[in-house]
């Protein structure tokens, strides 16, 4: 918006110049030629400097500077146009003056009179003791010209401030770029540290080692279970063997009791035979008969005791056999169930561990993917900071342009004050050429050419070239 406004104002001023360059020029004096030169210089300065600076695209960065430059330049154009109009009037000898400028109306007859008499206004002022007209040694002056010179002299201060402001913008942007880069680097380091930590703590080697250790421990548990099961089986077999041994021993006891019982029966039979033989012997066998009765009683008691012991031993053996069998069976079942439960728990533990490891691997993979996703934009942002260097170089070019404009305007002012038609400074066209040669990037040259209405040559060179 700023660049459009300035360009329109510059163009209208240029038109004004073209208008006055017709019939008025035919009647111009050498002073008028000088004014024309100055006016042309002002227009070229304004059009070239403001349009190039505005069209360089830096109005986004420097709206304040360009906004400030526009009215000042326009004011200078206005002053120059007004001054030229006065010169036309003076050159045409009209003598008509605005009612608002009585001092000029009063001064002009003096000036004309001085010109006619061949003395300068300084001499006329000194002669008449007047100081209401500012006069420069060696030239004839008007208040408008002097005012224009004063304004032109202000440009050096303005361009100096502009150059310093541009430097300030460069410094600020450089500091901001440094801060951004520092922050980006900090974020990048934190992300890298985090990733390294995750990779270290969850590396496949470590996971493999942990899994291997856990599997080794589980294998140890399984072997313990197997040994426990074997021991259980051996215990059961030993218990069975002991039961068998107990049964055999008990059978031996019962057999012995059967033998005792048999002896008791035979003894009873023997005592009966003795009683029969004693009865046959009569009185002589009465004593044997008594003994036989007693022996039969003893044999009967032995047989009764033997039967009783037999029954008790059988009952005891039955009881012991049943208890031992039941106990062994229960123990085997309990051991089997315990082993099964432990094996099932170990299996579940292994499954959970594998799930945990797989989950950890997923997390690690996700983190690595996300890190890649973050790393690329981070690096791109680090590269994007290069814009500050490009802007810096453009600002430095603008600063040099501002300085050149100031120097040139100072030369124009000096030319006005010295009544010369040649400036000490180079022609603006030469400065524009120098400016063009001083550009450091294709975009600046393209902008310059476009601003001057020249055919723009697009830069088609490769951005990366290995020789």
């Amino acid at each position, binding site marked *: 918006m700023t660049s459009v406004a300035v360009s329109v104002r510059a163009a209208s001023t240029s038109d004004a110049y073209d208008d006055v360059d017709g019939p008025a020029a035919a009647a111009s004096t050498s002073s008028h030629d000088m004014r024309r030169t100055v006016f042309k210089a002002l227009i070229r300065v304004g059009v070239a400097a403001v349009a190039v600076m505005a069209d360089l695209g830096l109005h986004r960065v420097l709206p304040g500077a360009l906004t400030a430059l526009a009215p000042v330049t326009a004011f200078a154009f206005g002053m120059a146009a007004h001054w030229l109009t006065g010169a036309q009037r003076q050159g045409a000898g009209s003598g008509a003056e605005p009612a608002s400028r009585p001092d000029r109306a009063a001064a002009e007859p003096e000036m004309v009179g001085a010109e006619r008499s061949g003395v300068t206004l300084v001499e006329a002022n000194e002669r008449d003791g007047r100081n209401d007209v500012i006069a420069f040694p060696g030239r004839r002056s008007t208040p408008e010209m002097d005012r224009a010179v004063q304004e032109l002299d202000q440009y050096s201060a303005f361009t100096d401030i502009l150059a310093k402001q541009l430097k300030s913008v460069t410094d600020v942007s*450089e500091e901001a*770029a*440094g801060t951004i*880069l*520092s922050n*980006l*680097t900090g974020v*990048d380091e934190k992300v890298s540290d985090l990733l390294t930590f995750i990779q270290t703590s969850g590396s496949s080697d470590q996971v493999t080692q942990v899994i291997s250790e856990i599997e080794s421990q589980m294998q140890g548990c399984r072997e313990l279970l197997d040994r426990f099961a074997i021991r259980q089986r051996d215990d059961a077999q030993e218990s069975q063997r002991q039961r068998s041994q107990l049964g055999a021993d008990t059978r031996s006891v019962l057999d012995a009791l059967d033998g005792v019982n048999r002896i008791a029966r035979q003894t009873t039979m023997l005592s009966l035979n003795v009683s029969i033989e004693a009865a046959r012997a009569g009185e002589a066998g009465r004593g044997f008969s008594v003994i036989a009765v007693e022996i039969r009683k003893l044999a009967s008691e032995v047989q009764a005791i033997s039967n009783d012991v037999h029954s008790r031993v059988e009952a005891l053996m039955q009881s012991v056999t049943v208890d031992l069998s039941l106990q062994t069976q229960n123990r085997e079942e309990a051991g089997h169930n315990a082993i099964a439960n432990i094996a099932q728990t170990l299996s579940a533990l292994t499954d959970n561990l594998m799930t945990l490891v797989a989950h950890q691997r997923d997390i690690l993979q996700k983190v690595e993917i996300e890190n890649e996703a973050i*790393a690329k934009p*981070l*690096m*791109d942002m*680090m*590269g*994007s*900071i*290069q*814009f*500050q*260097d*490009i802007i*810096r*170089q453009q600002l430095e070019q603008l600063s040099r342009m501002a300085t050149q404009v100031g120097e040139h305007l100072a030369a124009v002012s000096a030319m006005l004050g010295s009544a010369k038609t040649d400036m000490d400074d180079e022609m603006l066209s030469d400065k524009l050429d120098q400016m063009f040669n001083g550009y*450091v*990037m*294709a975009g600046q040259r393209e902008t310059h050419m476009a601003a001057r209405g020249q055919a723009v040559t697009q*830069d088609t*060179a490769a*951005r*990366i*070239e*290995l*020789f």
Partner: protein
Amino acid sequence: MKPVLLVDDSPTMLSSMSSILKKAGFACETAGTGEAALSKVSGGLSPCLVITDYHMPGMHGVDLIGKLRKLAPTRFVPMLVLTTESQPEKRGAAKAAGATGWLVKPVDPAALLQVVKQLVPGA
């Protein structure tokens, strides 16, 4: 690994390039002027790659390359010019002075790393 020598009068460029190259695993040495870069190499610095700006106060980039080519540590080291300039005649001057390549700012970090890895064996 030997460091990459970065030469630029812009602190921003030095920081930006250093960050990118360090992230890719390179060590970096920086210099703000051509004179400072020459001083570092003369003082014993032996870089694996030199990346220099073209426009710098004092000695410009092409002059620096010409002088570095005369020093033993950098005689056969690849040297890149990283600049906003893109004029063919300036590229030609850089090539004649011994530059290995020409990069126009702003350079894409991935493209920069690709070029660097291409020029530095084992990078």
